[in-house]
């Protein structure tokens, strides 16, 4: 058994330590946010935060995650009570199919927790690892901008209080 720290809670999972975190999140912990996109670390659909950093969970063996704080999109809010960054995505209607969006949100969350007031250029650079196929990029950028302008400091402060 390996004990993981997922969204502030301990979760004991019975899986091989080489199993990528993505499969444990989806299959063992029944979390939908992180998506399988490529399994190669090329697209970012599986992005979650580990120890404050955005990581591709499809490449991260759980054996390397143990004890480090994992945050997924479920840790930011719910469909009926979304967190500030999720709300910004809703406000900007920043999705088409939306398959990439949970990964986008977690990559942006990692940026805002570290830097509550990024420039537009910093946001673009930071988001570069994540792919969107529907062409929703401009709405995604606007959503991150909106969250930073409205709640950037709050998002950053939350990370400090909830840091491992």
């Amino acid at each position: 058994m390996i004990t993981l720290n997922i969204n502030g809670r301990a979760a004991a999972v019975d899986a091989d330590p080489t199993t990528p975190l993505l499969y444990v999140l989806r299959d063992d912990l029944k979390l939908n946010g992180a998506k399988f996109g490529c399994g190669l670390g090329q697209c970012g659909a599986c992005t979650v935060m580990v120890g404050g950093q955005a990581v591709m969970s499809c490449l991260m063996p759980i054996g390397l995650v143990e004890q480090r704080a994992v945050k997924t999109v479920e840790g930011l809010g719910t469909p009926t009570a979304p967190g500030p960054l999720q709300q910004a995505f809703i406000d900007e209607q920043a999705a088409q199919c939306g398959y990439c969006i949970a990964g986008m949100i977690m990559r942006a969350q990692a940026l805002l927790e570290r830097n509550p007031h990024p420039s537009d250029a910093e946001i673009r650079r930071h988001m570069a690892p994540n792919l969107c196929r529907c062409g929703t990029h401009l709405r995604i950028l606007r959503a991150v901008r909106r969250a930073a302008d409205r709640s950037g400091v709050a998002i950053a402060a939350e990370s400090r209080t909830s840091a491992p």
Partner: protein
Amino acid sequence: MKRIASSRLDRRRFLASGAALVVSFRLADGAAARNGAAQSKKAQPKPAPALPGSLKTEPMLDGWIRIDADGRVTVFTGKAELGQGIKTALIQVAAEELVVDPARITLVTADTARTANEGYTAGSHSMQDSGTAIRHAAAQVRAILLGRAAERLAVAPERLTVKDGVVGADGGRSVAYGELVAEANWHLAAAPQSPLREQATHTVIGQPMRRIDIPAKVAGGVAYVQDLRLDRMVHGRIVRPPSPAASLASLDPKAVEQQAGVLKVVRDGRFVGVVAEREHQAVRALRALGLAARWDEQPTLPLAQNLYKSVRETPAEDSVILDRGVPAPSDAAALSATYQRPYQAHASIGPSCAIAQLLDGRYTVWTHSQGVYPLRSALAELLGVAKDAVRCIHVEGSGCYGHNGADDVAADAVLLARAMPGRPVRVQWMREDEHGWEPFGPPMIAEAKATLDAAGMIRDWHYEVWSNTHSTRPGAAGDLLAATHLARPFKPTPPKPLPQPEGGGDRNAIPLYALPNAHVVHHFLRKMPLRVSALRSLGAYLNVFAIESFMDELARSANLDPVAFRLRHLNDARARDVIKTAADRFGWPTFQRRPGRGRGFAFARYKNLGAYAAIAMEVEVQRDSGRVRVVRAVAATDSGEVVNPDGIRNQIEGGIVQSSSWTLSEEVTFDASRVTSRDWGGYPILRFPDVPEQVDVHIVDRPGQPFLGTGEAAQGPAAAAIANALADATGVRLRELPFTRDRVRAAIGPA
């Protein structure tokens, strides 16, 4: 229920009576599934061609609208949500005509046991087909309810008012829809005319409405077929051949069968699948099987450097699709040009996925297919069972942009489910499956030739396009990848050209411009080295790219402004309006050209009968690297009557960005036997640093005009606007897609 008067039990009756079936997106109980499948075999009503939209194929009003005694409204559509926002727009249409709060409405989408057969959700048809049907059905149901309310309240119907499903009369008397349903019968065929609400009274149609599906998508709700977890579900993966013509020489699965969690290895010909308890166990088994399999490969693919030569040498079936006036004989003064596109991929971010379950001799399939009814037919043939024994339920997947692996993975899932009776089998393709085996958009060539008269008007126009088919969608088992890999393989349906006016390879090959003499030929190529099918906008992408590039070349040769040149060849007032709007909002006349930058313009009306789209762009070219970047784009669109303006904007914005990606970087690569672009490294798409700084979409609303599908309208114009801006910036015309850095650098030369 009182309104069920006849003893004939059919699907609509089933809908009207099955209170347990309202909630979408859940596993319906087995009995309901069996009922639905069993009843769907009953004869469909005869087509009623005079009816609006999809009422033609499903005329019964209760096939579209159901209202419960508690006032909840359920609307049924045979179309599917593909991420285009159709659910929200259809709810808006129903809410407007029923006069209820949109929040009161539950929408049930494509399901062979529950909804109308609306064919495929494709071709930007959903608003025209389903939106129109729901609009008219809702208006007619409202009229029936008002008729009952008038009797109940003893008032003339025209003196009644409706507010959120409550009918009011003088003196504060009122009655809610829910109280009327027991005595209101709309198990009736629709009438050709409907009492549609006056434009001026609209409160929902035409207003931006937030998409109902987005909250679950941003917060980890169950939003996709990939997220469904059925009781006792197991996981399958497929070991695909390394190349289309490869045969399986040997495979010893014994070691893999001993791996942890592996339940079964299924082999039939060169179809090899594995089923495991857990998903990652299935992935591990897949890798091990891949190493254990020995394949014999055949070099069947045209050499990449000879792609267009091989297209030209493919035997063609020619059809003249336009022959107007007297085309001039070959003229030395004619301007001519050739345009080409390679194989390109849908390349969905989420690999295709399906879940299938065999229970008591019946299959239930959860699928993101664009056509649950055609898929059901194909799966039934593949399995050798009656159609009644298969139920296909649409559940959203990752965006598909046409015919991707959605149907194929459903075939994979049923083949594995057949081997695992009782257990739901979830199959999700791996990235290399999606990039390697989806049916691609086919390579195409277009040749344009024209002469101008002394006044700078086009005198004659000659255009030819070479293309494979643009649809190999299922309907038959042979259209499913796995079925062609079995020991006794099914044969693919012989490819056919899609007929005009919509067309396939010749979609938008006929210009909308007023040309006195014009000749357009479609060279249909039957032989396909690689499987191809519908990719968003089909042949319109290349044809609009070619025609709109060529219009620019003609304008330049006549020393005329490209926007003015288009306008002087256009009589269609709506076309002129979007062109003028886009040019005006872009600041076309006052554009200040900076070094390395240029402006480009393009226009098309999708299929010549869908939405109008005009796009102006500013593009930046880096001479040293060959990098091309769209700086800003300004689009104007006319989609007829607007239902959800933000939905239209989202589609056009996304279309511009996606088409920019196709146009600047996308090309399927292959060697003599294999597709070699098997991941995002081999098939790069646009990333954040490359997307435009700004995309503005201006909507020309046409209240009272028919809905015009928008989803594919931007693909062609965006490509041509880039080409034209690139030519404006550098003086060099690129005609072969995509405009990769290497290709641009080679064309424009050093600074």
